[in-house]
């Protein structure tokens, strides 16, 4: 056996900007992604016949010509798989059986020896449709005469915290009734009422969906997929195929960007059903870039009607909100986004009287899924603009107005939950200061108008109350550690952060820690999903528990060996040390082979294997009628962004000089990664603010390609992004940490809108804040 020489130094790496452990692999192109995996000559390819209609009944299907095309191995339809599935509301089939409900809805799957032949065969499939009137507006969808998408909604299985209304297009209705809104308006000096609109957008990950499925001879399925929720996918496939979870194995290599689109089940389901008909052959399904725009998930659209009142002292007294979510044909996550929007509908403000109705509404649009922010960027678009307008009407400074009204720890929020300590006020002050709030600065040309805007935000992980995490920590002979987790590295740096935590607990350098990859439901411990900015906190807690379990075992072994009290022992620099006796033992060898008993009497110890799990036990349900309860969520991450920009009056173009982005992350385990999230969030937030929308005409997508779905490029992003880390610890977070992955894109769009309004006098109520809208609105203002 070789002794491994290691230079050891370093106190705890927690709180250090440790280099990403996947950086080299990814920068060199060595990191494997789903489409890189090799499957040999048995591999077949699947393509999908999709509905060309937003809403239609399938009258007949003729697949005979497709099946007869040379090279075609199987053709599948809705008859191959007849169980409904869904994360919270089981409202979908993998292949349509009765109706199609959006353009892109899968109708038939073709398996062939090449993608091209599969596609050719798809074009030979004959489907006879009875075209139905589409529902394309989430408000009009509630009209009594509106066509129904799901006639059998009453029969669908549903989670107990979701409230669908059979006989309507409402998939969920979440209500808040707090205080007395009706009487509060009388006490208000200023009342503002506005309507805001948010378009459907798409996540546009650089890697489109890729899934390879195989049914083996023992009747079990393996799915290799670009996935941020392997365990949830396993669960959903089990539902849809009426199988046990243990019959399905999901292997998830690195993900080339998810932003929510690769949670839940979309293209993967079609691959599994196609694999069913060709046992022993893996079947690969890749979405084209064009399909990616509307065949997987999109971010839901939103119509928000909001009324806010404040007294002469500038205290917000009442808020009344209606949200109409454009959920698309099926809901997967949408029903829970509507719920999260309801219980967060006030934003991070102290408002005694609240009435909110959040409706998740079926429409004949692409399926609304989770996207970075999970409803919060959408609702803050309205919240943070209407707060700006209230401040204007009160003639109050917008920073001062927010400081006066935002929540502090110990105060009751909209659902009656007592807020944990938060550093939101500090975020506001620091963000404002970073862009010289209140100071007029000159624009870059006589044609430009420059000004500043601010917006705050909050977001809680939106998940079932009992979403759990687990981890194992295995010690190797050389004292390195192999950590297994079920959460996924989707670019956010979670593997690095987990390694830091383990290293911190075990007193070893970070580069002694390896994460078991790829995530594989057969070998990796359970993780609910990589969503909700919850991994640092939830999976972190599980990882810390596992590392502490290993640490305890090591210390107990050494304590027995030295005959010392465990209290005097510690792990430092890769060694067990005793502060009392000053004895030292290197971890190598002892963590696998144990230690010899005195006088050659044998051995004690053995391979150290730590395990840990975490599940919040304290989240309570909310009252159906009032939305009130003890603790709606685990915690809120709060923050603020302040924007300095100018608008070119000749074109309406926005040029962002700088954005300060301040968030209370509890504790930055890796400050550089936290800053990277703030930068990425600002870029994505600015892109959605200025450019992005999936345009539809009667339910048919019009710009499903990068030609006409524009996203920000490197020259569109702000000249300067100023990340500001605020740390007010979370009581149950590892080292006090809470999540910040999604949050930095939440306030970006309204902060930009507020700055545009300050610069030009023109306020844009429907996203995106395009140059065209600004210019044409300014023209209207000029011509009176």
């Amino acid at each position, binding site marked *: 056996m070789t002794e491994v020489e290691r230079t050891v130094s370093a106190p705890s790496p927690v709180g250090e900007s440790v280099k990403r452990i996947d950086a080299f692999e990814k920068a060199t192109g060595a990191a494997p992604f789903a489409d890189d995996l090799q499957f040999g000559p048995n591999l077949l390819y699947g393509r999908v016949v999709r509905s060309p209609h937003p809403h239609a009944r399938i009258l007949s299907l003729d697949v005979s010509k497709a099946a007869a095309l040379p090279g075609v191995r199987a053709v599948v339809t809705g008859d191959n798989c007849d169980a409904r599935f869904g994360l919270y509301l089981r409202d979908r089939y993998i292949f349509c059986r009765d109706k199609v409900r959006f353009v892109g809805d899968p109708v038939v799957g073709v398996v062939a020896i090449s993608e091209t032949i599969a596609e050719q065969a798809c074009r030979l499939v004959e489907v006879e449709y009875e075209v139905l009137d589409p529902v394309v507006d989430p408000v009009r969808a509630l009209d009594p005469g509106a066509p129904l998408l799901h006639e059998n909604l009453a029969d669908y299985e549903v989670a107990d915290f979701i409230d669908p209304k059979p006989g309507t297009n409402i998939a969920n209705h979440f209500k808040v009734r707090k205080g007395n809104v009706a009487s509060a308006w009388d006490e208000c000096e200023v009342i503002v009422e506005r309507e805001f609109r948010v378009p459907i957008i798409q996540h546009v990950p650089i890697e489109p969906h890729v899934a390879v499925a195989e049914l083996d001879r023992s009747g079990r399925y393996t799915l290799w997929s670009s996935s941020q929720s392997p365990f949830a996918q396993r669960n959903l496939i089990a539902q849809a195929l009426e199988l046990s979870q243990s019959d399905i194995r999901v292997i998830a290599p690195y993900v080339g960007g998810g932003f929510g689109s690769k949670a839940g089940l979309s293209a993967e389901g079609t691959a599994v059903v196609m694999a069913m008909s060709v046992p022993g052959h893996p079947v690969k399904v890749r979405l*084209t870039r064009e399909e990616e725009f509307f065949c997987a998930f999109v971010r839901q659209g939103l119509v928000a009607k909001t009324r806010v009142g404040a007294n002469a002292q500038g205290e917000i007294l009442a808020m009344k909100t209606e949200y109409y979510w454009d959920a698309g044909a099926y809901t997967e996550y949408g029903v829970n986004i509507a719920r999260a929007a309801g219980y967060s509908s006030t934003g991070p403000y102290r408002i005694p009287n609240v009435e909110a109705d959040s409706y998740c509404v079926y429409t004949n649009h692409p399926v609304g899924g989770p996207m970075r922010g999970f409803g919060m960027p959408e609702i803050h678009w309205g919240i943070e603009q209407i707060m700006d307008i209230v401040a204007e009407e009160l003639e109050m400074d917008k920073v001062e107005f927010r400081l006066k009204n935002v929540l502090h720890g110990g105060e009751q929020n909209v659902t009656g939950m007592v807020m944990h300590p938060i550093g939101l006020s500090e975020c506001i002050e620091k963000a404002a200061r970073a862009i010289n709030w209140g100071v007029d600065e000159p624009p870059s040309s006589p044609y430009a108008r420059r000004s500043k805007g601010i917006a705050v935000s909050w977001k809680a992980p939106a998940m079932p109350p009992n979403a759990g995490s687990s981890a194992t920590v295995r010690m190797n002979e050389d004292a390195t550690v192999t950590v297994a987790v079920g959460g996924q590295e989707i670019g956010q740096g979670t593997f690095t952060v987990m390694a830091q935590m383990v290293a911190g607990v075990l007193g070893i350098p970070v580069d002694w820690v390896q994460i078991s990859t790829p995530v594989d439901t057969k070998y990796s411990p359970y993780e609910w999903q990589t969503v909700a900015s919850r991994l640092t906190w939830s999976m972190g807690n599980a990882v810390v528990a596992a590392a502490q379990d290993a640490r305890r075992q090591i210390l107990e072994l050494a304590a027995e060996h030295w005959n010392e009290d465990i209290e005097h022992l510690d792990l430092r620099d890769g060694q067990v040390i005793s502060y009392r006796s000053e004895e030292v033992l290197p971890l190598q060898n002892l963590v696998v082979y144990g230690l010899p008993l005195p006088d050659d009497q044998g051995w004690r110890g053995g391979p150290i294997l730590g395990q840990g799990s975490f599940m919040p036990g304290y989240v309570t349900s909310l009252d159906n009628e009032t939305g009130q309860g003890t603790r709606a969520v685990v915690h809120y991450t709060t923050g603020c962004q302040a924007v300095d920009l100018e608008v070119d009056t000749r074109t309406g173009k926005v040029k962002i000089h700088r954005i300060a982005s301040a968030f209370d992350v509890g504790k930055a385990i890796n400050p550089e990664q936290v800053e990277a999230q703030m930068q990425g969030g600002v870029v994505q937030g600015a892109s959605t603010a200025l*450019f992005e929308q999936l345009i539809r005409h009667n339910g048919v997508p019009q710009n*499903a390609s990068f030609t006409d779905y*524009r996203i920000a*490029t490197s020259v*569109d992003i702000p000249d300067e992004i100023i990340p500001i880390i605020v740390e007010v610890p979370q009581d149950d977070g590892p080292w006090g940490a809470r999540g910040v992955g999604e949050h930095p894109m939440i306030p970006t769009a309204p902060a930009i809108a507020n700055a545009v309004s300050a610069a030009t006098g023109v306020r844009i109520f429907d996203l995106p804040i395009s140059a065209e809208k600004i210019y*044409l609105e300014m023209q209207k203002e000029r011509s009176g």
Partner: protein
Amino acid sequence: MELPLPELPAFDYLHASSAQHALEQLGGSIARTRVLSGGTDLFVQMRAGSIAPTELIDLKHIPGLATIEFDENSGLTIGAAATMNAVARDPEVQANYPLLVRALETVASYQLRNRATIGGNLCNASPAADSAPSLLVLGSRLTLESVGGQRELALNDFFKGPGETALTPGEILTKISLPLAPTGWKGRYLKLGRNTSGDLAIVGVAVLGFPDPEPTSGFRFRIALASVAPTPIRVADAEELLETTTLSDESIEQAARIAQDLARPISDARASAEYRRAMVFELTAWALKDVRQMLEEEA
């Protein structure tokens, strides 16, 4: 809606060794045979299924078809298969036709310009072609060849409609010729996209001005627009106005108004006709003012 194919459909590839070789193979069938240059538009159309050629004739390797030659007496000749990046980084082009360099630099992305050719950009005849307005104001002429011989045509007479050109079946574009640029000229290409880089033009405006003692204003101007009519267009009336009146903010705005009135934009996913019309005015005025300032600084 029909989605693009997952892969490029199959086709026969012909590596043309000379223009004659290509022309002989081309025959007359545009539906079955297409010429291939950079492929940046062609392959997109083939994936989309809007064209379905079974044979592509690659012009890129024809000797002389990608050359860029500058002559101090006659001007610039660009082979139709020269890539945009090759043209944009040519020292003579940079020294003598910086307006063209600026225009090319607004096309798509750097990577795409490694493939895309000027010849392809013109033959694709998109109303939004970014190279067109600059080539129009620089007075470019085209050489078209067929088995029967060759002919020359002013670029202004080449565009016939969206995707339509004066090319007859069996004919290919081989050369783009630019005369020497007028002495003391200044130019500006302004392109407005939804975002700063990589977008198709909502509106593109090229303005070129140079001193000339003969007209009243002491200057001559040429103005061309992209993306606001079925083809890229010159705005002759505005050019004339600027020559026959004294140059002022008012005359510039009047000229911009003429350009705006001439534009016949459509509404599409990129912009409304209303915004496009407004932008013709704004960008034309902006480009003219910039050019005026440059001319005055020089004078």
